[in-house]
């Protein structure tokens, strides 16, 4: 048993597993980024975030497959649509609930989840739809194959993370977004229109959902309930990283993805998820504020 284990550990396939975990982590990091950004600035958790991604996937699917639009253009439109959805979510729902009890905010965005899901089911039906894009795989050696889709997803996710980081670190708006999460009340004294900043952040968060949608649509079929399959992971990553802490969320994404793929390597893929969730629950006992949360 032990010999088998060590053999497995030093096997070439384990390296492949680690790399795949890394690639998955990039996508998970992108998924959690938008949610974290919104929470950090507005202090409201968008339970419906994964459903906005789902709608982004549908947009890309219909424009590309039914509309015959080039994939890149369809993705650009998808990002535009989800950015508008993010903007509208704040404009029509969250904006009125900023002073409300947190439970009511959660219920409202939870309601939006079912609204988006139901609307997608009525409008698009329940069948699984595939973009039908296959990029093949890259052979690193005779034994190691990496799917181009995953490599591309990782590269785009990493690129977005870098661009967003630069935006937050260097621009005035980025500085305001960091500042507002540290002291909301005095933003007025800096001449910041918090309402506008909230709308902008919601639109950026929505746009990030659109990008995540593009990466997921390359790997998974679209259906009205797809949000449920990665929504919970996204939330757990954000919580484990310390809600609103984007660097923490980024690191947590890789911890999660490695746990999932390594668990999947030693057993079934489902066990990988079980392992990741058990680790999450255990980590909540040890550090309820999040593994990578700042000491306050």
């Amino acid at each position, binding site marked *: 048993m032990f010999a088998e284990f060590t053999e497995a550990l030093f096997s070439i396939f384990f390296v492949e597993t680690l790399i795949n975990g890394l690639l998955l982590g990039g996508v998970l990091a992108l998924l959690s980024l938008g949610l974290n950004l919104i929470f950090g600035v507005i202090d409201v958790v968008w339970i419906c975030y994964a459903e906005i991604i789902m709608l982004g996937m549908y947009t890309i699917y219909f424009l590309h497959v039914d509309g015959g639009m080039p994939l890149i253009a369809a993705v650009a439109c998808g990002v535009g649509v989800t950015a508008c959805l993010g903007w509208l979510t704040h404009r029509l729902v969250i904006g009125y609930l900023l002073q409300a009890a947190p439970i009511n905010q959660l219920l409202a965005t939870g309601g939006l989840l079912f609204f988006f899901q139901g609307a997608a089911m009525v409008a698009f039906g329940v069948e699984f739809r595939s973009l039908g894009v296959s990029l093949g795989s890259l052979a690193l050696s005779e034994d190691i194959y990496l799917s181009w889709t995953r490599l591309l997803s990782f590269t785009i996710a990493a690129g977005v993370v870098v661009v967003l980081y630069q935006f937050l670190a260097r621009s*005035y708006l980025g*500085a*305001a977004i*960091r*500042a507002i999460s*540290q002291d909301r009340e*005095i933003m007025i*004294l*800096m*001449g910041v229109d918090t309402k506008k900043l909230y709308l902008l952040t919601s639109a950026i968060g929505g746009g990030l959902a659109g990008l995540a949608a593009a990466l997921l649509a390359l790997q998974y079929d679209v259906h009205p309930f797809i949000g449920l399959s990665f929504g919970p992971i996204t939330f757990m990553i954000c919580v484990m990283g310390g809600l609103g802490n984007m660097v923490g969320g980024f690191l947590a994404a890789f911890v999660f993805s490695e746990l999932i793929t390594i668990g999947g390597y030693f057993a079934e893929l489902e066990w990988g998820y079980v392992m990741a969730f058990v680790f999450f629950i255990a980590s909540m006992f040890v550090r309820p504020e999040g593994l990578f949360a700042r000491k306050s």
Partner: protein
Amino acid sequence: MLTLRNINAGYGDFQALFDVSLDVNAGEAVAVIGPNGAGKSTLMRVISGMIPATAGQIEMEGASVLDAPAHDIVGMGIAHAPENRRLFPRMTVEDNLRMGCFMPQFRDRFEERKDFVYDLFPRMLERRNQMAGTLSGGEQQMCAIGRALMSDPKILLMDEPSAGLAPVIVQQVFSLIERIRGEGLTVLIVEQNVRQVLRIVDRAYVLESGSLRLEGTSDELLQSPEIQKAFMGM
């Protein structure tokens, strides 16, 4: 320059200011003094739009402050270094200063204003890449005043700049304020440190339970038996 007429304000059902009127002329330094809970900070917050006035008028160089959106008030030349400094603790000193320059019309002058602040407070230059939350109390006060100065304001509101600082540092903060005055800036300052603040301002108002009780030049107030009894323990 800044005129308040019959201002009422409060929080919810609690009224904190009753019929407050005061003037600050260009180039002047004016203090508002009074005991804890007199409404001094509320007064500052009303001027800079952090809380609404329920009645009255505020004018800055003839333009109505209360009619402007709260986030435009700093654009009218009114900068506010708030109570407890309120820096962004997990941002560097320089990023804090950058926030003081946030409004689009100020951004072009960021470098110039930053140099001005570093000139005034060389310590801030040394600390510019340090997180504001890790600064000492006196340094945080410099940073807060520096941030307010970034917009090149016409009038600087300072709310208890000496609060929570060691006596030696309090001295330094007051000499900093004198230097800022030397730059020709108009200053409205709220302080509990009555004796010291009266030495650096031209005039002062005494606020008690939300109403103005007294006003006069610093010398008059320093001599006033009422002030001596109430604030200086004589």
